[in-house]
């Protein structure tokens, strides 16, 4: 008898289901029981006054897809009973960030302007996961249109809370996804990463988050933010589950011409082969942060917290003890990642957001208007929250003809310099020929709710160490590597050359195996205390 299947790794659930030792329906029962225990009210519009009980729940979801989940589970159980081969993700419960279209489900992007939109088709990556017999259990809350690093900008309240400390944010924009996985509300969640939106919340919530190489996973059915930066990626409780999910999602899609034709490698074949002989870099440029002081316009440069730096160094020592060589390198353009991102992402966002106009789909103002222009202005003012509006205004400003050279073209050139930092240190270069670069995922641990929200610049700097990978298009993974003194998760990031997913999984798995008996690994998020067997 398995008491809480929702707490087992996804790949173990598939094994049990295929051996008929556990039914897919029992897994779904367990997951929805967990959601009922810990999640509380799903996010909804105009929910302004949070109760005390609301503040003690996770609120990872905007909507649950119970009918879809049970139908899929019954289909899988029937298939196995009938002696047919089930898919490689048979019975694994997954949630999907509410920025992906899933046919027949409400797909809101966390915005009032899409609050009643029902998806007419399913995103390619979700379609591939369901074809592999993964079970979609619901849609998770997020920052509005993914614009944020804390989930607080969602129009759907209560916004998600961090299972490790319910008065702190889970990160963002895939914060609902990371919180759900950390709380046992599904084994895997599919997020999207434009500046760190998979890796940063994974780090804040003590789980694994993977951003693949740009073009490795289709963006078809992902509501676009920064089209040259967006990458769908999995969040999971362990490295093997992330590898299985990415293996399933990866590949060419004729509906997204930016997906590359090169076939994905087998991420699982050598995942446990260790790191002997690998060359892993660390850089002082990722141990200092540049941020705007609260209450002033001045930028300050300071070292990151000692405990985060020590966690990265400790992870590096662990890999060194397993036979990897640790090499110090310079990454001089790291600090320009956020300024360049402020320009590029805003230009792309402003362009992408023009489709939301109250004509073709979504919300239209109920106020009176005299003509089309007035309808546009009222609909967009009432339908968008402050973060989309800020992005539209900034995007239009920096791409205006008279400023484009100073801002947009300069940012795209800076993007080349950030990419060249990586090309000069990775394999096949004349430099240190690294297999991967190890960095902190975030400059801080999860911050308290309401502490940063409203300051759009300070919030953006939460992505300082993750955004370079989006500029460069390279893959990256955040893995849990310890707890702070205040018992909050600290994540370590591994970045690799284009299409080095297999190597990153291998390094991450080596670290996971080597630290499996560390005391921090047995800690439980307080939100699920007493619920695990």
């Amino acid at each position, binding site marked *: 008898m398995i008491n809480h299947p929702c707490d087992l790794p996804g790949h173990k659930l598939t094994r049990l289901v295929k051996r008929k030792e556990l039914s897919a329906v029992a897994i779904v029962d367990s997951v929805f029981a967990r959601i009922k225990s810990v999640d509380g009210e799903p996010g909804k519009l105009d929910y302004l006054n949070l109760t005390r009980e609301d503040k003690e729940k996770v609120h990872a979801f905007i909507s649950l897809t119970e009918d879809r989940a049970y139908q899929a589970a019954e289909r899988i159980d029937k298939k196995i009973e009938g002696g047919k081969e089930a898919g490689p993700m048979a019975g694994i419960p997954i949630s999907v960030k509410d920025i992906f279209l899933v046919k027949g489900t409400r797909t809101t992007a966390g915005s009032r302007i899409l609050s009643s939109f*029902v998806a007419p088709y399913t995103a390619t990556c979700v379609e591939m996961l369901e074809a592999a017999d993964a079970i979609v259990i619901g849609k998770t809350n997020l920052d509005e249109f993914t614009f944020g690093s804390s989930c607080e900008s969602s129009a759907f309240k209560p916004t998600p809370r961090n299972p490790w400390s319910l008065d702190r944010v889970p990160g963002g924009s895939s914060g609902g996804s990371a919180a759900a996985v950390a709380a046992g509300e599904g084994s895997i969640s599919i997020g999207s990463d434009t500046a760190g939106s998979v890796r940063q919340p994974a780090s804040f919530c003590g789980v694994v988050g993977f951003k693949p190489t740009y073009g490795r996973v289709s963006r078809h059915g992902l509501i676009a933010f920064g089209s040259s930066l967006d990458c769908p990626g999995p969040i999971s409780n362990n490295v093997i589950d992330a590898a299985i999910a990415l293996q399933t999602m990866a590949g060419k899609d004729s509906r997204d*011409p930016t997906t590359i034709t090169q076939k994905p490698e087998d991420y699982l074949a050598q995942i446990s082969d260790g790191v002997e002989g690998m060359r892993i870099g660390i850089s002082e440029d990722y141990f200092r942060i540049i941020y705007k002081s609260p209450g002033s*316009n001045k930028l300050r440069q300071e070292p990151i917290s000692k405990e985060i730096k020590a966690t990265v160094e400790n992870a590096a020592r662990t890999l060194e003890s397993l036979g990897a060589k640790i090499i110090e390198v310079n990454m001089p353009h790291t600090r320009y990642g956020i300024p360049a991102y402020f320009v590029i992402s805003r230009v792309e966002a402003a362009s992408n957001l023009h489709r939301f106009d*109250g*004509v073709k789909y979504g919300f239209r103002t109920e106020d009176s208007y005299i003509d089309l222009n007035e309808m546009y202005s009222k609909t967009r*003012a009432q339908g968008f929250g402050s973060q989309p509006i800020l992005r539209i205004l900034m995007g239009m400003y920096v791409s205006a003809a008279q400023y484009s050279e100073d801002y947009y073209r300069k940012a795209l050139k*800076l*993007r080349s310099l950030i990419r060249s930092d990586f090309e000069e240190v990775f394999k096949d270069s004349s430099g240190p020929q690294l297999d991967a670069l190890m960095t902190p995922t975030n400059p801080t641990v999860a911050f308290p709710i309401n502490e940063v929200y409203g300051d759009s610049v300070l919030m953006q700097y939460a992505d300082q160490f993750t955004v370079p990978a989006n500029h460069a298009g390279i893959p990256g993974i955040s893995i849990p590597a310890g707890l702070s003194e205040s018992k909050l998760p600290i994540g370590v990031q591994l970045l690799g050359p284009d299409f080095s997913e297999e190597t990153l999984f291998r390094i991450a798995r080596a670290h996971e195996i080597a630290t499996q008996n560390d005391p921090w690994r047995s800690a439980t998020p307080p939100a699920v205390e007493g619920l695990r067997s």
Partner: protein
Amino acid sequence: MEFAAIELTEEEAIYFLKQLNIQLTAIHEMDLITEIETTTPITTHGIRYTTMNTQFLREDVAKVSSYADSILAQMPETKSRYVVTPSLPLRELE
């Protein structure tokens, strides 16, 4: 505001102006970098697309979409399967 097609109250405009100015301060950090030259290439996607990894363009063939009914059903206003828009503003041609 006209190009952005967003109506703002005065109070909202003050908040957005403040945030935009702070963001511009951060953006101007780009001015500190000296290596950017006129010959520095731009990067648009990070990874390099080559003939080895890029998809050929699809043939331009019309296909009947199975989504049409579902999409039409969600439009704010339709008439005989056409989108209805509010009237266009009248402007004198110069």
